[in-house]
C-alpha cells in the first residue's frame, strides 16, 4: 500500500512489459523445456540441447563471433560516441548540428538498410571498386575487423546520446577546484570530468552492447558475401529452415539473454558503489565554446566523418536506386528514374504497404509513448520493489532479435482460448502494433528517463500537496516539463518502427503486406534498384513526416530551465 498510486503504476507497468516483452520471450525459451506446450503436447524437451552450443561448430562459431563483435563494437563505439559527444558539447563549430541530425538518422534507420548500403559500397562489384577504383575495400571490410568497424559506425549513436545528455549540465566548481590545485586542463579532464561521466559512458556502452549482440541486419546482409554467423543469425536459421526448430531458437535466445543480463549486471555493479548525482543548484547548462583556430579542422573532420557514416550506407541505397544496372557504373545513360516510376505502377504494393506501415508505427509511437512514460516514471521516481526488473525488460527488446519476439508473439497471441475474448490478435494488424510498441519501448524509455532525471521529485510532490490527482500531476507538471523529450521519443519510435523488418515478416496478416516486407521481398528477388528506390521513398516520407511534426509541435522560445 506504500504510496498507493506508485505501486499501482509499478504493477501495471510490469504487467504491460510482461505482455509485450516477457511472455513472448519466455514462450520461445520454454520451447527448450516443453517443445510442444503451445500445441497441447506435454513432453519434455531435450535439455542436452543447452550444451550443444559447446559442441556444434556452427553454434560455437556464432557465440564466438557474437561476443567478439559485440565486445569490440561496444569498446570502440562507446569511445567514438563518447569522444564525439564531448567534442560536440565543448566546442562550437559549423556543421555540428549536422552531427546531431546524423546521429538520429543512424538511430532510426534499421540496421538491414544500413548494412545493405555498406554491402553495396564494399562488395567486389560495389561502388567503392566501380566508382573509385578502391580495390582494397572489399577485403578490408569483409573480415572481422572490417565488420567491427561497420558495426561501430552504425551503433555509436547510442553512446553519443547517452554521454551528450549527461554533459548538458555541468558543475564548473568541480573542475575549477581541480584547476586551482594546479592541475593541467587535460588532467582535470582525466581525473574529474571523465570519471563523473563514467555512468553515462557505461550506460551508453550497455546499450551499444545490447543493440550489437542482438543485431540481425548486419550478419544477414553481409552473409551474402562473407560468412559471419552470429547468435541472432543462427536463431534466424533455426526458425527459418525446415524442419523448424523453435527449441534451438529457444536455446540460442537463452544464451543471448544470458549475455545481456551479464552486461547489465556489470553495468549495475560498476555504478553501484559510487554516487554521481553531482548536479547541484550550481549546475549550469553547458554552452559550447568557440573552437577558434581549430574550428576549420573540426568542420572538415566532421564532414569527412559524416560522409562515411551517413554517406556510405545511405548513399549506397540512393545510387542503387538511380542506376539502371549496378555493374555499368556512373555514366549518364546508366542513370534512370525507372525504379521510382515502378513504385507507382501496377499494384502499387509499395504505396499500400507504406500507408499501412505509417499507420502502424504512428499508433505504436503514441501507445508506446504512454508505456514508455510509465516505465520511465517508475524508473525515475518510484520506490517500486521490482524496479530493476522493469528496467531489464524495458531494454530486452533492444537485444532480442525481432524474429524471436515475432515467434513468441505467435505463441502468445494465437491461443484458441483468446478467440472468444476477441484477443486472438495473431493475423490482425493490431499484433503488428503491439510488436512495434515492444520494439519502441527501449528507445522511448532511454530518452524519457534522461529527461525525467532532470525534473526534481519535489516538483511533483509540491503538486500532490496542493491536492492534485496523479493524472493531473502527470499532465500539468511532468508532461510540460519533458515536452521536448516526449516529442523526440515519439518521433524516434515512429521512425524506427516503420522499417522494422524482422517482426513484420513473421507477423504480417494475410493480404497485409507492409513496407519493410515489400522492400525485403524486392531485395530477395535481386530487384536492388526497386528495393533501393522503395527505401529512399519510404525513408524520405518518414523524414518529411518527422520534420513536419517537429515543426508543428516543438514550441520555440519560452526556454524552461529547471
Amino acid at each position, binding site marked *: 500500500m506504500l504510496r498507493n498510486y506508485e505501486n499501482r503504476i509499478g504493477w501495471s507497468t510490469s504487467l504491460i512489459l510482461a505482455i509485450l516483452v516477457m511472455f513472448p520471450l519466455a514462450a520461445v525459451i520454454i520451447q527448450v523445456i516443453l517443445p510442444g506446450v503451445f500445441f497441447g503436447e506435454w513432453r519434455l524437451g531435450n535439455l542436452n540441447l543447452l550444451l550443444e552450443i559447446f559442441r556444434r561448430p556452427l553454434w560455437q562459431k556464432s557465440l564466438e563471433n557474437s561476443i567478439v563483435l559485440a565486445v569490440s563494437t561496444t569498446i570502440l563505439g562507446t569511445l567514438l560516441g563518447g569522444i564525439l559527444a564531448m567534442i560536440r558539447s565543448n566546442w562550437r563549430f559549423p556543421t555540428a548540428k549536422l552531427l546531431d541530425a546524423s546521429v538520429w538518422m543512424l538511430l532510426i534507420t534499421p540496421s538491414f538498410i544500413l548494412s545493405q548500403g555498406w554491402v553495396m559500397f564494399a562488395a567486389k562489384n560495389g561502388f567503392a571498386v566501380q566508382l573509385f577504383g578502391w580495390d582494397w575495400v572489399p577485403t578490408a571490410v569483409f573480415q572481422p575487423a572490417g565488420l567491427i568497424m561497420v558495426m561501430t559506425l552504425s551503433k555509436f549513436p547510442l553512446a553519443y546520446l547517452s554521454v551528450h545528455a549527461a554533459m548538458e549540465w555541468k558543475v564548473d566548481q568541480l573542475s575549477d577546484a581541480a584547476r586551482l590545485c594546479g592541475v593541467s586542463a587535460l588532467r582535470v579532464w582525466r581525473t574529474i570530468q571523465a570519471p563523473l561521466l563514467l555512468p553515462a559512458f557505461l550506460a551508453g556502452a550497455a546499450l551499444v552492447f545490447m543493440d550489437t549482440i542482438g543485431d540481425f541486419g548486419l550478419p544477414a546482409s553481409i552473409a551474402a558475401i562473407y560468412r559471419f554467423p552470429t547468435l541472432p543469425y543462427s536463431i534466424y536459421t533455426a526458425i527459418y529452415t525446415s524442419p523448424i526448430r523453435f527449441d534451438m531458437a529457444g536455446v540460442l535466445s537463452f544464451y543471448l539473454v544470458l549475455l545481456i543480463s551479464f552486461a547489465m549486471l556489470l553495468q549495475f555493479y560498476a555504478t553501484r558503489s559510487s554516487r554521481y548525482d553531482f548536479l547541484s543548484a550550481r549546475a549550469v547548462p553547458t554552452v559550447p565554446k568557440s573552437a577558434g583556430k581549430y574550428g576549420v579542422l573540426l568542420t572538415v573532420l566532421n564532414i569527412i566523418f559524416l560522409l562515411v557514416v551517413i554517406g556510405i550506407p545511405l548513399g549506397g541505397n540512393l545510387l542503387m536506386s538511380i542506376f539502371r544496372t549496378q555493374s555499368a557504373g556512373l555514366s549518364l545513360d546508366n542513370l534512370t528514374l525507372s525504379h521510382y516510376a515502378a513504385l507507382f505502377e501496377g499494384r502499387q504494393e509499395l504505396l499500400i504497404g507504406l500507408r499501412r506501415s505509417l499507420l502502424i508505427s504512428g499508433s505504436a509511437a503514441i501507445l508506446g509513448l504512454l508505456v514508455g512514460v510509465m516505465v520511465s516514471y517508475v524508473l525515475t521516481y518510484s520506490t517500486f520493489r521490482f524496479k530493476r526488473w522493469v528496467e531489464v525488460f524495458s531494454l530486452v527488446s533492444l537485444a532480442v532479435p525481432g524474429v524471436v519476439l515475432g515467434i513468441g508473439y505467435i505463441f502468445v497471441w494465437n491461443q484458441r482460448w483468446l478467440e472468444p475474448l476477441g484477443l486472438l490478435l495473431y493475423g490482425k494488424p493490431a499484433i503488428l502494433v503491439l510488436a512495434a510498441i515492444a520494439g519502441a519501448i527501449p528507445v522511448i524509455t532511454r530518452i524519457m528517463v534522461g529527461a525525467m532525471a532532470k525534473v*526534481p521529485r519535489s516538483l511533483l510532490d509540491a503538486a*500532490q*500537496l*496542493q491536492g492534485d490527482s496523479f493524472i493531473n500531476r502527470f499532465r*500539468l507538471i511532468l508532461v510540460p516539463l519533458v515536452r521536448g523529450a516526449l516529442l523526440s521519443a515519439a518521433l524516434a519510435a515512429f521512425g524506427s518502427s516503420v522499417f522494422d523488418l524482422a517482426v513484420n515478416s513473421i507477423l504480417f496478416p494475410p493480404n497485409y503486406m507492409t513496407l519493410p516486407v515489400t522492400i525485403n521481398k524486392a531485395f530477395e528477388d535481386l530487384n536492388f534498384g526497386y528495393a533501393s528506390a522503395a527505401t529512399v521513398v519510404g525513408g524520405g516520407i518518414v523524414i518529411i513526416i518527422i520534420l513536419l511534426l517537429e515543426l508543428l509541435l516543438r514550441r520555440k522560445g519560452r526556454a524552461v530551465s529547471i
Partner: protein
Amino acid sequence: MSTSKPLLEIRELTKSFGSFQALLGISFDMHEGEIISVLGPSGCGKSTLLQLVAGLTQPDGGEITLSGETIASRKRMMPPEKRGVNMVFQDYALWPHMNVFDNISYGLKHQKMGRDAIQGRVLELINMLHLDGLQKRLPPQLSGGQQQRVAIARALATRPRLMLLDEPLSNLDMRLRIEMRTEMAYLFRQLGMSVFHVTHDPDEAFAMADRLLILRGGKIDQIGTPQECYSKPASRWVASLLGAINHVRGEVVRTASGVALRIGSTILEGNVGESGMAWTDGSQAEVLFRPEDLNITRQLSLSEAEDFEGLSQLNNVHNELVMKVMYCTFEGKRWRCKVELADGTSMYLLHDQPLEPHTVLCASLSKQFAYLYLIEED
C-alpha cells in the same frame, strides 16, 4: 498550553531505508495553532519525519493522526493530496513552466473555486507576501527571496490544516534569512497557522518556534519551549547544538549545594538537569557552556603571568578558571578570543576589547550557565 485535542499526534513512529534506521520510535503531540520547529543536523531523521507527515513516505511502524484521524500507519496510508497539509520545499519546487499566478493558483483550481474567487485569493496572497507586480513572471526570473515568498503563498493558498516547512530559508543569504524568519514568524502567528518546521539552524528555530523538537539519530533528545531548551539543554549534545560550544572535562565532586566538577584545582559548580543519574564522586564528567557566559574577573600582570602553570594550580576560587589568550578575532560588536587552560583545553570567550596574546586571565562562570553531563562510554 491548551488542553484541547491535539491537531497532530505521533506515536512510536519508525522508519528505515534499507539498513539505515532513520527514525527509531518518535512520539509527540502538536496543538492547533502551534509552531513546532524540528531541529537537528543532517541525517538526524528530521526530513524523514516531515516526509512521513506529508505522506510522501509510509512509516514502518507507529501511527500519525491528524485531527483525530489516522493518516499514516503501517497498514493505512492516506495519500498526501487528501491530508489537507501543504508544504514549502527546501528548493521551493516552483514549477518552472508556470508563472507566479499559475503557481499560486494551482491548488485552488483543483478545489473547484470560481474564477473570481481564485483571482481574489491569489491577489490577497500576492499582497500579503509583497509580490505585487510579479504575477506574470516565471520562477527563473525571480530572486531567491521572491521565489521563497511565492512558495509560501502557494502553500498558504489551499488553506492547509497544517503547514510544513522544509528548511525553508537554507537557500537564502544571511540578511534575507533573518528578514524572512521574522516575517514568517509574524505571518504564521497572525494567520493562526499550525506549522511544522524543519531546520538545522538554531537561530531560525528560536525565531519561529513555540516549541522545539530536537532530534538526534532518529530519536527525540529534547522537546520544549525554545527558552527551556536554551536554558536547560537536556543533553550534552543539545547543549552544544544550542551554542554551548565550550567544553571542559573534570571529575565529579559532590558539594553541599549540589554537584560540581574538579578541573585542575578549581571547583566548578553547575546544573545537572534531571538528576536521575548517578553522580558519584570521582566519575568523569564534562561541563558545557557558552562563550558569552564567561566573565573576565581579572587580568594578571605580566610577572604573574610568567608562572601560568603555577597560578592555575594555586587558584581555588569557586567557578573561576585561569586561562591564557591565544588570539582574538573581531566580530563587529565584540571580540572572540581563543583561550587555553593549563591542561591545553581550548575554548572561546567574548570580550568587548581585544586581548593581547599570552595574557593570562581569570574568568568566572555562574552556576546556572554551566551544564554538567556525565561522560558516557560510547
